[in-house]
């Protein structure tokens, strides 16, 4: 999860998010260099003693400041497109989970083998146990096995919602009457937090998402326990 006053991304928990982080670093360095260049030019222009009221044109500088931005844009676009197509690659999911947005909670259904479904409500602040995070923790977590491609089918029962988990690099709108598909692989075990990312009413901030990635044997034990409790 994000720590207080954090500005940057959270640590990546999926290969796609790792790629996005690296692309962001690449784009940020380019932005930094452009900003430095502009700042330097501003300082140089403000402090110069040279004046010339009769400059009409200059082919060389015009060529430079046309070609250079084009090159910079290509330098940004190529890795960006690579990641875009990477995110759309066809994978063979090991598990399909349906996430359905309601006002104001998420429900998850694991229907590949048995009919397992449960609701995930935010833990109210007054009911938080020691160590739980305010406005982030839920009563039931969405548990997934690590290193397995997971297919998420995301929809909504009432209004627009959005299922987002930043550390997995997933964000997908939940639209009533529509199934949106997203895929991810949790590279490492852990607990990953997200929040509803589409305006859906008064309690949009109070319907978080918690994904718990565990080794496969733990996932199997958890799903057996959930089925027994159901």
């Amino acid at each position, binding site marked *: 999860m994000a720590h207080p006053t954090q500005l940057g991304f959270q640590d990546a928990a999926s290969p796609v998010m790792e790629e996005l982080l*690296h692309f962001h670093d690449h784009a940020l360095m380019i932005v*930094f260099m452009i900003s430095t260049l502009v700042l330097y030019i501003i300082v140089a222009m403000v402090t110069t003693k040279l004046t010339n009221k009769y400059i009409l044109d200059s082919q060389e500088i015009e060529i430079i400041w046309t070609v250079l931005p084009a090159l910079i844009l290509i330098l940004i676009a190529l890795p960006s497109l690579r990641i875009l197509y990477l995110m759309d690659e066809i994978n063979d999911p090991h598990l399909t989970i349906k996430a359905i947005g309601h006002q104001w909670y998420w429900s998850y259904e694991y229907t590949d083998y048995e009919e397992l479904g449960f609701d995930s409500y935010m833990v109210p602040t007054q009911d938080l146990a020691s*160590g739980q995070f305010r406005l982030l923790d839920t009563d039931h977590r969405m548990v997934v096995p690590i290193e397995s491609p997971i297919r998420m089918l995301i929809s909504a029962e009432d209004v627009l919602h959005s299922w987002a988990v930043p550390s997995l690099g997933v964000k997908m709108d939940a639209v009533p009457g529509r199934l949106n598909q997203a895929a991810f692989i949790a590279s490492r075990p852990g607990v990953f937090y997200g929040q509803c990312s589409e305006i859906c009413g008064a309690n949009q901030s109070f319907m978080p998402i918690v994904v718990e990635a565990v080794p496969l044997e733990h996932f199997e034990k958890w799903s057996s326990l959930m089925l027994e409790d159901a």
Partner: protein
Amino acid sequence: MAGEEEQRPDKGFRLMGILDVQKIPCAREAILHGAGGSLAAGLLYFLATSRVKRSFDVGFAGFMVTTLGSWFYCRINNAKLRMQQRFIQEGLKNKVVYEGTVRDPTNKETPSGTP
């Protein structure tokens, strides 16, 4: 979990408020190389021509070129290492599966009938 919050990492130093040189791989080296390249280029130009303002321009150009060169060189090597790391991880995972078979990566004997 609450205790871990108190050990959150330092805020880090952000150049121009955006570039976190401590957390981003290769950023610190690139900026340091850029600073060194800038100093060297500006100083050499000044020693050769004694033009102060132009030396600053050359120094800045040296900063841009050195920073970007160091950055891309480091990032490409970083990317190659990450790819190798992924192959090794896959290989370690597959070693258990393929152990004792023809596809075992540690099996040095070639199967009969293969060229």
